[in-house]
């Protein structure tokens, strides 16, 4: 059984909001909606939802400013929707604190998958996790001990490989942009050295026995996400 949650939808496209509402309610979620940025922020403050589905193309204000404002008072998962197909906008939203994104049009299956990841990660707490141990079906990460186990077998990671995995683990469930990762793991001067990241992500996948990128998922042109 999929866990249920309270979900806020902020989008000015009424048809889409109605369809989402029907679908999410049928799945057992509680749904609240708003058609503009200002009413949306109020709604989130009032209802304290676990997930916010936010359209970046709102009529009254830029969706990016809404992401920043929401992040100032809530740790809920933010899923941004963009109709423009504008990569830059998505990346900015993620940098500003959004957890994941969907490009319109999307199917319910896609939305549900993203929701599941966001909900599992956000269940009950805010901001980046402070947990010291992160466990998934096959993966176990002990952050203070710098120990990684795959299927109960310890894996040897280099210093940078571990730093990369640890950063993604601390933000598990969230799409981290290339810049975010490079700045945190390699340092501010490396923000554009994309190939470093590619090489290390590939090595990590090999060592974690994750050839398809199911654990360390690639968001093409945007960044990486550790799926827990």
């Amino acid at each position, binding site marked *: 059984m999929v866990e249920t949650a309270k979900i806020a939808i902020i989008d000015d*496209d009424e*048809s*889409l909001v*109605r*369809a*989402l509402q*029907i*679908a999410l309610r*049928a*799945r057992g979620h509680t749904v609240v909606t708003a058609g503009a940025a200002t009413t949306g922020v109020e709604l989130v403050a009032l209802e304290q939802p676990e997930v916010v589905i936010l359209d970046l*193309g709102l*009529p*009254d204000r830029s969706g990016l400013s809404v992401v920043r404002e929401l992040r100032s008072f809530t740790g809920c998962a933010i899923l941004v*929707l963009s*109709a*423009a*197909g504008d990569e830059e906008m998505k990346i900015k939203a993620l940098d500003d604190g959004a957890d994941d994104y969907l490009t*319109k*049009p*999307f*199917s*319910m*299956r896609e*939305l549900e998958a993203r929701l599941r990841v966001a909900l599992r990660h956000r269940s009950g707490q805010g901001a980046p996790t402070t947990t010291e141990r992160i466990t998934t079906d096959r993966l176990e990460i002990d952050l203070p001990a710098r120990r990684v186990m795959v299927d109960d077998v310890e894996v040897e990671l280099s210093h940078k490989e571990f730093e990369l995995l640890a950063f993604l683990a601390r933000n598990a469930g969230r799409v981290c942009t290339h810049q975010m990762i490079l700045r945190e793991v390699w340092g501010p001067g490396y923000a554009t050295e994309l190939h470093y990241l590619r090489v290390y992500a590939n090595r990590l996948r090999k060592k974690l026995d994750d050839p398809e990128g199911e654990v360390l998922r690639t968001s093409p042109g945007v960044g990486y996400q550790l799926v827990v």
Partner: protein
Amino acid sequence: MTHARPAVHLAFYTTVVNRRPSKEFLRALLIFGLTLLILSLVLFSIRSHLSVATSALVLVIPVVVGVVAGGFSVGVVGVLSGFVVYDYFFIPPYYTLNVGAASNWVALVVYVVVVGILARVVASLRSARAQAIRRSEDLERLAVITQRLVTDLPMGEILPQILSDLVAAFGLQGAAVYLPTYDGLTELSGVGEAILPDELAALVPRGGGIGTVVKSEHRSKTYWRLVPLIAGADVVGGLVLKGDDALPYRDDLMRSFANALAALLQKHSLRLEAMRNSELEERDRWRRALLGSVSHDLRTPLASLTTSASTLAELKEELSTEQREELLATIERQSLRLARLVENLLDSSRIEANMLAPRIANVDTRELIDEALGAFGEAERALVHVTLDESIPSVAVDHVLVAQALANLIENGLRYCEPSTGVDVSATSTDSRVEIGVRDRGPGVDPSLGGRIFGRFEKGAGSPGAGLGLWIAQSFVELNGGIIGFREAADGGSVFLIDLPTANEMMVDG
């Protein structure tokens, strides 16, 4: 690479001296002969009363007349024949070429010297006068060319005129201007007899193009020649001349013609380039806007379509009948919206390509409005209130285009109206026109749009849509001989008006 300005090409505009006796020469000779004959007969009849010197004086006259009529060459003939006639008939002993007394010798020599000098002087006066006339003619032709250059006529009209001037001025068979293109020479304009491909090929320098020097060719009696047209340091084109004789050129006039043509071609190519650039810019803008509307306006209805359809597919069992119906209604509405958008995009491409020829026929105004409403789903149709008098006449339009224009106005109204008031469609008529009004009680037209409301890609701030609907409506209405306009309604909202011609009895019913 630099093009040295060719100095040689001037050398080709040299005067070609005609070796055959011209008509003018023969005519002058005849005038001279007749004058000489008449004066000789008169002198002969009164010879006994005249002195030898008097006859000499009178016999100067035919030579002067001959020189005036035919130039110095006639003068030479005149002096020789005058000498013979004078000696034979008027210097005793008569009818021999013997010159008797010493005084007669003096008279004869003085006659020849005086006539020779006179012929010389008169001939040079004559040629000076001819040159002056020619110069004033040249100036006149130049003035005509200059006049043509400053007129803002299209190239296609000026060029043939200048070429006609050229053909007339030089008595040519034909003349043409060519442009150098990547695969040879292309004729831009031609006058008179056509330049044959093989004639042209013979003029093209090895390596193609036009080159920088004048090139001449001839085959039996046909002569043709390629003159490069040079503006600044560039060869902008080539002038090809064709005549049935060695082409008679004069440096100054020919050069002026060539320079004028070169200047004209350069001006033309600059203008073409500017036009092409602005056309490219416009196309670029169009493409960008189209891409923008495709990515946003197509994705928005697609998002609800995909979500609704996939919800129906995946949650079949969990949904109530009402929820299923709502999702189905959303799918219908969004499909229609998408269809209208695609229709609009196609229409604007058709307008762009000038592909629309309206098929005008008589149409019932009510049917026209119904046709426009057919583009909307049931829920939207319920918001549109149509009030029409029974007496509203039919209109003479292309019903497909005008219904589309009306649908765009209604869609625009629906976008801004309040669900409680909806959109009102009504019509009024005069003898020859029907005016259909589409009214919403929305916020009115964004004042920053002002008069550009019907412009392509123009839309209010925050408004959905590609900004194509009203532009298409205007294009379609105007194609049908109608007028489109809008005004703010006194009690709020906007009224869009379409003014159409009423049905014509001559026209078949649509």
